């Protein structure tokens, strides 16, 4: 890439290209530059070089910053003591409590616990290019868009060709769970857990436990949740025991 342009980039040229990339040009100047850029491979190569340089500098600066950001993480966990108007706080708390009570009044225990702990798996990135597994990614896109039935159709078709694929079993469980079909979700999570030790096993145990909660099978729910080894297990077990 660095050898594609004809010669060194002069200061004047650098400043012009940089002004375009950093959006420091007027609309008119910008349009003029784009016209010049069209079909000019030398200018295009130089523009790419300057773009990469600007972003590379930004990336190096950000790397240093992330170390500083990281130092701030524990500080976030220290509770802040602030002056509080206790009367106002009590009023807000009362209103909140009533709202929460009204919201959950009609919910069963399993629904409440499930709602408090269920967070759908966000899925894997999709590139939709010929170099990747297009059918798998198409279904993943459907899954991430909340079109669970379409995702299930895509992955179940792939599962026929790869019946032992743990990624397919795991995401089929997730898709059925998203579709609120907990029996089928349970089936896929169980098959993944039974068949092999996979990187998805802990997550599968966790979601299997949540499926059992939805199906009011608290004994199996407790057993599955314990197997997941997740941080939230003591809290959720405590909730179930109430």
């Amino acid at each position, binding site marked *: *890439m660095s050898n594609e342009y004809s010669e060194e980039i002069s200061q004047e040229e650098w400043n012009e290209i940089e002004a375009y990339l950093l959006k420091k040009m007027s609309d008119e100047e910008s349009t003029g530059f784009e016209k010049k850029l069209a079909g000019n491979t030398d200018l295009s190569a130089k523009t790419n070089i300057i773009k990469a340089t600007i972003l*590379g*500098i930004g*990336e*190096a600066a950000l790397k240093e910053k*992330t170390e500083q*950001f*990281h130092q701030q993480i524990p500080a976030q966990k220290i509770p802040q003591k602030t002056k509080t108007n206790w009367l106002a706080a009590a009023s807000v708390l009362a209103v909140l409590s009533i709202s929460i009570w009204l919201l959950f009044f009609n919910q069963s225990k399993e629904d409440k616990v499930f709602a408090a702990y269920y967070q759908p798996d966000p899925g*894997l990135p999709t*590139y939709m290019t010929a170099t990747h597994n297009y059918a798998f990614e198409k279904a993943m896109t459907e899954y991430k868009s909340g079109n669970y039935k379409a995702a299930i159709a895509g992955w179940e078709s792939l599962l026929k060709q790869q019946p032992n694929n743990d990624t397919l079993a795991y995401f089929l469980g997730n898709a059925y769970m998203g579709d609120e079909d907990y029996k089928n979700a349970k089936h896929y999570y169980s098959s993944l857990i039974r068949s092999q030790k996979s990187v998805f096993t802990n997550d599968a145990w966790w979601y299997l436990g949540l499926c059992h909660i939805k199906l009011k099978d608290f004994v199996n729910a407790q057993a599955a949740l314990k197997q997941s080894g997740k941080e939230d297990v003591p809290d959720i077990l405590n909730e179930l025991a109430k």
Partner: protein
Amino acid sequence: MINKFDFNNETTLQNIYIKNYHKIEKYVVDNSGTKDDAKDLYQEAFIALWRNIQLNKFMPANEAEVTAYLYTIARNKWLDVLRTARHKNEKKSIEIETLPEIKQDDIKTDLENEIKAVSTQFKKLGQNCKEVLTKFYFKKESLKAIGEQFGWTEATAKNNKYRCLQHLRALVKKKL
């Protein structure tokens, strides 16, 4: 949509960094990793997020999308780590053949490779050059303000910035 300029704002970046760290740490620790692994992985994922936003490869509509994207990058990178021979030996219970084939780094373009080269060579610059370039390109400070901090005129700051860039380009060309 999250503005690209905002995403260069240090406070915004710090907030996003802090807010999302524990979720990634939990994922890594839950899947055979340590807290140190989680930190390295998270920082790498955070930089990939920033780069992909700058390159318009990812255009988040809101902060929830940023969180989901960050989690996905980190998770894919961790799956890659689990695939390595070192980890395979240490964690025999994990059957790496069953891990998904999708790899975040598969689709690195020439531009991304060049960005990486610049970022690596940047460390070799002198302290003044590093500061001038960081202040101008990352912190978005004006040449006038940079000049004042170094006791230079704006014109000198402009010339010095160009010299630093030439030095950086020479280092990158030497390596490529």
